[in-house]
C-alpha cells in the first residue's frame, strides 16, 4: 500500500490512478477536475512513469496549476488546483 500521508496539503478530491496507463490517468483527472470549482484541488496518485511528464503538461494545457508533483519511486503524487473555466 502507498502511504500518501507525506503530502501535507489537503485536497478537495482524491483520484487513484494506480495501475492505469496513458491516456487513462489524464482522462480521469480531467473528468474529476471538471467536477471541481475554480480554486479547489485534486490529489492524483499514479504509477505510470509517463505521468511525471503528462500531468504537468495536462495542467499547463488546461490552465490549471500544479501545486505538487512528487516522485515516490513506484508512485507519483500530484496536487492540481483547478484554474478558471475557459
Amino acid at each position, binding site marked *: 500500500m502507498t502511504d500518501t500521508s507525506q503530502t501535507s496539503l489537503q485536497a478537495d478530491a482524491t483520484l487513484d490512478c494506480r495501475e*492505469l*496507463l496513458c491516456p487513462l490517468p489524464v482522462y480521469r483527472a*480531467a*473528468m474529476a477536475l471538471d467536477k471541481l470549482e475554480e480554486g479547489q484541488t485534486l490529489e492524483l496518485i499514479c504509477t505510470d512513469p509517463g505521468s511525471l511528464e503528462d500531468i504537468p503538461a495536462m495542467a499547463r494545457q488546461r490552465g490549471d496549476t500544479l501545486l505538487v508533483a512528487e516522485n515516490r519511486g513506484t508512485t507519483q503524487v500530484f496536487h492540481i488546483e483547478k484554474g478558471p473555466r*475557459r
Partner: protein
Amino acid sequence: MTDVVRELSPAAEAAPRQRRLALVASKGTLDQAYPPLILATTAVSLGWEAGIYFTFYGLDILHRKRFEHLKVASLANPSGPVQLPNLLGAIPGATAAATKVMKKWMKNANMPGVPEFIEMAQGAGVRFFACSTTMGVMGVSESDLIGGCEIAGAAAFLDYAADADVQLFV
C-alpha cells in the same frame, strides 16, 4: 426534403479559440485503432477540440459489426505480438493468435477494448468523421456505422483540419 448544410468548423467565437487536434485514421487493424483514439481522448482531456477522420480501412473502427473484431496482422508485421516468419504468418490461425495476444496485453494493462474506448472518446466530446468516399467505395451505409458519426468528404475534413493546431495521419 430539405438538405441541412452542416459546418464542421463553425465561425470562431469572440472567446480565445480552443486548441484543436485533427487526426486521420486510415488503418483498420486492432493495434492501429488505438493511437488515434488515445491521442484524441487525451486532447479533449486537455481542453482541446478533437476530431478523427476515419478513411479507407480506418472506417472499420466505426463499423458496428466490425469494430469488435479488429485484428492484428501476423503477416508482414515483424513487431507483432506473435513473431513469425512471413511463411508461417500466413497460415490459418496466425492472425487470430496475434490478435488474442494483443487483446490479452491490453486487458492486463487495464486498457479498454476498442468499443469501450470509442464510447469513452465520444462521451468526452471527440468528433468522429466517416469518409464518404470510403463508404461509397466499400458499400458501407450510415446504418452500418456506430451512432454519432458525421459523414464528411475531404473538403469538409480539410476545412476542419485547417483550423487545427495539430494534424496527424495514422
